[in-house]
């Protein structure tokens, strides 16, 4: 049995890198600094190690050949999931480029709301260490933060010491939209977060009014979506008085039509606060199951985030057209590759009667057996690698913790790509 310390996690999105892990053969136990997300993700036992074709166990070589055959025959293949490490994503892009495939990250429908806002007007954002050391006012919009990230408050707001705040427990937390599901946002001195609750669908209106108040525009109603204007005005005033306000949101949680306009409203409001003479930053939440990693690698290799295609030999980006779910619905797909190295429960969406290849974390259980299934190792457990944290700046170095013999995403996808050429 060996003990490994300072283990970084690709699962929680906040890049925790202080886990202590015990490895006994191929079984893993998180002994320190685990959480509801990281501990089960690390401790999940290896199930299958053999690839399958048509439900029958085969060698890796046979599975790769079959996968290549499916892709080679396709007029329009799509690669979904894209949940892997940097090297896995590099191999995925090379394969997609060669095969003329669509690349669509599984969280892109959420992330799209951020990209559309950013590509239209931009934003002013910050990162975790700045929050930890500077933030005195924290506004959460439309998101249950502790459900998203159980350790966020404890690590980044209620940290005992900070470089620029005398007393971190005096930080103020405000929720707009969803109320918190637990008490993580309550300060160590028992100060509860202020909550202005409204339905998600009302957030566009509420944020529009809040921005108007930040800009000192006259607002002629007394309340919006059940929230008193006087209460919103207090928040606007606080934002303009804070030393380092931070407004956070999770694009994935803003699940209503044209939510990108709400993201944009919020980002423009942050700019307005800066224009009023104090500092304020946005902080988009994401980073789970390799979504930032997928967008980063796709970004530097093609210039576009991870909903794009190589069908015409050039990279083309469209956040709407290349959504694999709508492509399935329109009957535009004749081969489907699902890549999911982190989460064995994240099964591929149902694409209809389409030849399907799944390259995924060992233990995935299917309602309908895919044509090809290749179980792979998990980055940060079975092999080393890199993954991006939610703030998109820090890439963590994932460690190899055990010798499972499972191949990496990169090995499998590179082999499929090679088999396409031969």
């Amino acid at each position, binding site marked *: 049995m060996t003990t490994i310390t300072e283990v970084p996690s690709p699962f929680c999105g906040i890049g925790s*890198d202080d886990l202590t892990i015990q490895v006994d053969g191929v079984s893993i136990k998180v002994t320190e600094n685990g959480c509801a997300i990281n501990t089960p993700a690390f401790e999940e036992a290896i199930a299958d190690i053999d690839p399958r074709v048509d439900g029958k166990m085969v060698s890796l070589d046979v599975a790769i050949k079959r996968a290549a055959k499916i892709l080679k025959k396709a007029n329009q293949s799509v690669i979904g999931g894209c949940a892997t490490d940097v090297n896995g994503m590099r191999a995925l892009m090379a394969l997609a480029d060669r095969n003329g495939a669509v690349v669509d990250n599984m969280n892109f429908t959420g992330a799209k709301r951020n990209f559309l806002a950013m590509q239209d007007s931009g934003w002013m954002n910050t990162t975790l260490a700045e929050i930890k050391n500077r933030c005195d006012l924290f506004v959460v919009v439309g998101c249950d933060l502790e459900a998203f990230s159980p350790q966020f408050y404890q690590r980044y707001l209620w940290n005992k010491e900070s470089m620029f705040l005398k007393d971190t427990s005096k930080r103020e937390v405000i929720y707009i939209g969803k109320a918190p599901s637990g008490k993580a946002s309550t300060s160590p001195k028992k100060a509860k977060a202020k909550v202005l609750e409204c339905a998600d669908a009302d957030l566009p209106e509420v944020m529009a009014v809040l921005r108007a108040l930040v800009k000192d525009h006259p607002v002629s109603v007394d309340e919006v979506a059940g929230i008193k204007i006087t209460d919103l005005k207090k928040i606007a005033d606080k934002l303009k008085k804070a030393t380092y306000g931070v407004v956070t949101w999770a694009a994935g949680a803003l699940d209503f039509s044209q939510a990108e306009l709400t993201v944009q409203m919020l980002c423009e409001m942050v700019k307005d606060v800066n224009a009023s003479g104090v500092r304020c930053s946005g902080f988009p939440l994401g980073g789970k199951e390799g979504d930032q990693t997928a967008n980063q690698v796709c970004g530097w290799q093609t210039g576009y985030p991870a909903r794009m295609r190589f069908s015409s030999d050039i990279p083309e980006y469209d956040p709407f057209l290349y959504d694999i779910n709508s492509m399935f619905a329109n009957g535009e797909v004749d081969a489907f590759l699902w890549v999911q190295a982190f989460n064995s429960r994240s099964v591929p969406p149902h694409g209809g009667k389409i030849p399907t290849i799944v390259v995924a974390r060992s233990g995935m259980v299917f309602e309908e057996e895919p044509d090809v299934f290749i179980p792979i190792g998990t980055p940060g457990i079975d092999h080393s690698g890199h993954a991006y944290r939610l703030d998109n*700046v*820090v890439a963590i170095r994932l460690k190899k913790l055990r010798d499972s013999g499972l191949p990496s995403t990169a090995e499998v996808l590179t082999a499929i790509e090679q088999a396409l050429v031969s």
Partner: protein
Amino acid sequence: MLTKLTGGIVYDPANKINGKQKDIYIKDGKIVNKPRNADPDKEYNIKGKVVMAGAIDLHTHIGGGKGNIARMLMPENHRIDPVAHTDIKRAGTGHAMPSTFVTGYRYAEMGYTAAFEPAVLPVNARQAHMEMGDVPMLDKGGYVMLGSDDYFLRMMTAKKDQQAINDYVAWTIRAAQGVGIKVVNPGGISAFKFNQRKLDLDEKNTHYNVTPRDILRSLATAIKELGIKHPLHVHGSNLGVPGNVQTTLDSIAGVDGLPVHLTHVQFHSYGTEGDFKFSSGAAKIAESINKNKNMSVDVGQIMFGQTVTASGDSQRQYANHGIASPNKWVCMDIECDAGCGLVPFKYKDQNFVNALQWAIGLEIFLLVDDPWRIFLTTDHPNGAPFTSYPHLIRLLMDKSFRNDMLATIHPEAKKMTTLASIDREYTMQEIAILTRAGAAKITGLVGRGALGKNDWADITVYTENENREKMFEKPDYVFKNGEMVVKDGEIVKTVWGTTHVVRPEYDKSVEKDLKKYFDKYMTMKMGNFTISDDEITEDGRGSITVHPTVGEKI
């Protein structure tokens, strides 16, 4: 395998060869003397063609987080310039901020064999190396940004001695796998986080009580004492501000003769004269550079057209967001380490300021005497994409072409520049110094930028052409480590360059305090911050080349 390049006219300033016909022999990737009695396995008849070492860009934003934000910000700018894949090339996109593959291909197709990313945030260094790991064809390296990071500023406030600063600088450059150190708007990125919207050379950061002048001197001293060959790479205070020529002159005076490289100095050479209160400070800057032999500069020439500015200088980028075109921009505060700002720009020849910026850059090129201390850059993509270099070379080598261009710009700007009165035309040898020998020397590269015995065979062959733009945009051949990789301006083979680093010595005890700092204030462990060699080499393509510090043998 022995390769012979026969009959070329060689410009190799590192070996004082100026346009002499000379055969070149290559064996095992390196240049060798003429072997006594061996027939070449491969011979290229390049009689009368111009031969130079592969070009080196010492300041170009090709890898790192802000560059990738710039890419993502501008899908419309990629759509106009798609690049299809071929049997040997990956697909990608070009224009202002090209994808990594296209960056490598296009540089190589212009005869470049190395490029250096000048703004590697230590906390984002992993990304910079991963992106550069996906840039084919080129050697690469990075300058690690310090000076607005809270650890350093805390040391300054605590008046830690120079030795302690040196140890921290050496630790950082090793942890981030860098080849030099850069400072951007010294202390200003930090000041912006404390809501200071500007910071003059002698203005104090309100929290730390430290001035940019203090920071410059401290870091420049560290570089010198650690023996890092590339001088402190300085993106000065007050970028883009009319009147900043004085800031720049004061900065030069403020470093007391320590070796310092002023980058994109064009953006720091503005006066306040004339009807529009914006004028050229080029003559003053050039005079100061000519006098102070400790100084070197790269120009950061602007070219007219669409680009996106990508800078670590969040403070100045924020100040400039009002002129974003198209109107979208990004600013970030980053990890108590640095920051960044992305502002799309459209430089217009009929805009007075832009037109004068163009002229100021050219004035600096033409007024600085010593070609070993000035370098050809557009601060890609900030002044213009790197693909405009052949055009820039023509502007420098061809006075009548330059004057023709000058005639087309904003008439008031034309009145405010001395450009028409400058007769200088750069020679072939001078271009070879700016883009090869000088660049290799100032970045401390051993065995590159030169064509002597034992130098790496990074070689570019051009066909002589009066139209220098045509000549430099399409070399006949480019050899990388002795292999032909470009023919007639097209990639014929994809290769992967090395990553250049330096590893100055330091006292390991510096890690004790750093570890405490990371545990208390940072969001990652010190051990996980450090980039290991295998992170660069494990993909089987990357490699690391360690260059000596002054007085060190490797």
